């Protein structure tokens, strides 16, 4: 039996939800607003909310100083590339862990996650040296591989959780009908787990898009993505907040739009398996 929800409680819940959502969204809203302000207004005290001379000058200045599209393209290639590569490796891995677990499967999952517990800067110099030796510094391929490795534990964990919800009997039935291992994974498992795979894909694109440590440290110009684009607009002397906000807005806009359109999928995927 479900609990009765009184209209008063419903109103309180709605107000509460909107308040929390606004608090969470406020930094982004403030960044977007600041990007349309003249520089002195951006640092005015008390802060100015809406009543200022709206201007596009910051966007013009940002684009004039640096070519946005080059950075954007690198971001797209690196985030999509690393996620697709990660899925190719993680789907079979998660399949084996979910459907043919061994004695050490749980330990293996834990161990994979432990690589996320180390601060990234701790391995900066070794990775930098490896990249230098392999000629991968400032290359899209190198960065794609690094981001894939960083996000792989999360991809495997998410897929593992989704796969566990799928009855093993269905896969058995496919096997009885003579399906090989690869066709079992490609034609039976993948279509059934598609919502889960889709949300894993989206979440990891977002994570890779926003990854700032490795993308800033391992690139110079050729492979530099939008994180590096933003990092150049802070200034030691002179006002910069409005231009920095414009650069940030340009950097987050594509991923924000992607998130907006796929939010239903994302929420469904993230809460998948929550009710057990």
């Amino acid at each position, binding site marked *: 039996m479900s609990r009765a929800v009184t209209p008063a409680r419903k109103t309180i819940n709605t107000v509460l939800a909107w308040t929390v959502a606004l608090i969470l969204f406020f930094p982004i809203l403030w960044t977007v607003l600041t990007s349309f302000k003249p*520089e*002195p207004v951006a*640092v*005015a*005290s008390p802060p100015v909310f809406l009543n200022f001379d709206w201007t596009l000058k910051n966007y013009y200045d940002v684009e004039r*100083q*640096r070519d946005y599209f080059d950075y954007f393209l690198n971001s797209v290639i690196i985030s999509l590339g690393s996620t697709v590569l990660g899925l190719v490796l993680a789907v079979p891995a998660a399949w084996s862990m979910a459907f043919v677990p061994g004695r050490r499967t749980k330990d293996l999952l834990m161990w994979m996650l432990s690589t996320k517990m180390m601060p990234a800067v701790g391995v*900066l*110099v070794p990775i*930098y*040296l490896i990249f*230098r030796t392999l000629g991968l*510094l*400032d290359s899209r391929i190198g960065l794609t591989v690094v981001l894939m490795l960083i996000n792989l534990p999360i991809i495997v964990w998410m897929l593992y959780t989704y796969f566990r919800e799928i009855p093993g009997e269905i896969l058995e039935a496919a096997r009885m009908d003579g399906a090989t291992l690869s066709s079992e994974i490609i034609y039976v498992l993948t279509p059934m787990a598609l919502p889960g795979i889709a949300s894993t894909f989206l979440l990891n694109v977002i994570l890779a898009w926003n990854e700032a440590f490795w993308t*800033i*440290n391992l690139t*110079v*110009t050729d492979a*530099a993505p939008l994180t*590096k684009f933003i*990092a*150049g*607009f*802070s*200034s*030691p*002397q*002179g*006002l*910069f907040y409005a231009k920095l906000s414009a650069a940030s807005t340009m950097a987050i806009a594509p991923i924000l739009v992607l998130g907006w359109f796929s939010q239903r999928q994302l929420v469904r995927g993230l809460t998948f398996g929550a009710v057990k």
Partner: protein
Amino acid sequence: MNTLTRALMGATALCALGIAASAQEATTLTIATVNNGDMVRMQGLTDAFTEQHPDIELEWVTLEENVLRQNVTTDIATSGGQYDVITIGTYEVPIWGKQGWLVPLNDLPAEYDVDDILPPIRAGLSVDDTLFAVPFYGESSFVMYRKDLAEAAGVTIPDQPTWDDIKAAAAAMNDPDNGIYGICLRGKAGWGENTAFITTMANSYGARWFDENWQPQFDSPEWKATITDYLDLMTNYGPPGASSNGFNENLTLFQQGKCGMWIDATVAGSFVTDPNNSTVADQVGFALGPDSGQGKRANWLWAWSLAIPSSSDAPDAAKQFVAWATSKEYTELVAENEGWANVPPGTRTSLYENQEYLAAAPFAQMTIDSINAADPNSPTVQPVPYTGVQFVAIPEFQGIGTAVGQEFSAALAGEKTVDEALAAAQELAVQEMTTAGYIQ
């Protein structure tokens, strides 16, 4: 035509293309810079360089100061060779030069006229008389004040003020009811923020960071006098929330007419007198950093400079570029395109003998006098084992300087007393210096 013939023809064409490409192959210089007005302007004017040097291509990486430092240190320490020219300050040059991370620049061509570089700046960029970087622009710090407010309050600020003059003027001009504060000073924590300013103030009060045996000196009466006066000035005559004000915040306050005085970088001279951004552009007077009669003034020395990392694979082309970007010829190029007021200041003696520049920049004379009053090799009244005016040129200083700055910022915010802040600063400095092996 059979397949073999086609393949051979294709291969020949490819070889020809390859040869043609390698004959024209240009050296690409990757230049890392910080994002400030003068650097952005330089990026816009480099056509003049590439026209003279068609075999050199330039690629720019603009980064936030701390990100730049981290990127470049990782690259140099691992000989990554990603950067050919880097923008660094007077803090890094002596440290990195000593480490052998930078290419010596003693062999610049005669027409570069290295003797024209201002002596204090050149000293700050050299280790044992070897030049490791060339200055792109240099700065000291000085007093900027509102002539109209001073006149209305009946005070005069001499060209060479003492701290007593500053205190009297701050008290006279302070009018918080009308949104005007007697003095604006840095309060935001950071080795390049409040620590820089307070260190110069301490120098003029006879205090020092370390004695000749590297023993921290925050327990000295000179430091107590410095911090007591700094807090008195800021609590009585400073703007509210000053503990989060850095260069940019104070610049805005001053430009909006909210500060009677502001002691900060000489480079701000061109910002506060720019009628497009400053509401008080025609009312600004300048004076040297204050002293307390002990022979040292409160003014720092800094130069954003171009250096070549030893890991660069094109040091010769890089040398041509750094020589061009810091030459007299470049100064004239900026003057021609953007006017004399916009040329990078504080690097060459000849600029301060140029009447056109002196006429265009009302702060020029005070800037050069301030730079010449700073001595990185003898920054304080008492002898010290370090170089650097508003910093101590040792690798550990970034950490210690920021931690000490946080103590002073907390005192300014009213969270600590002067004694508590200084005791905490002393304790953490002793601990860090012991860990780093300077003291037992």
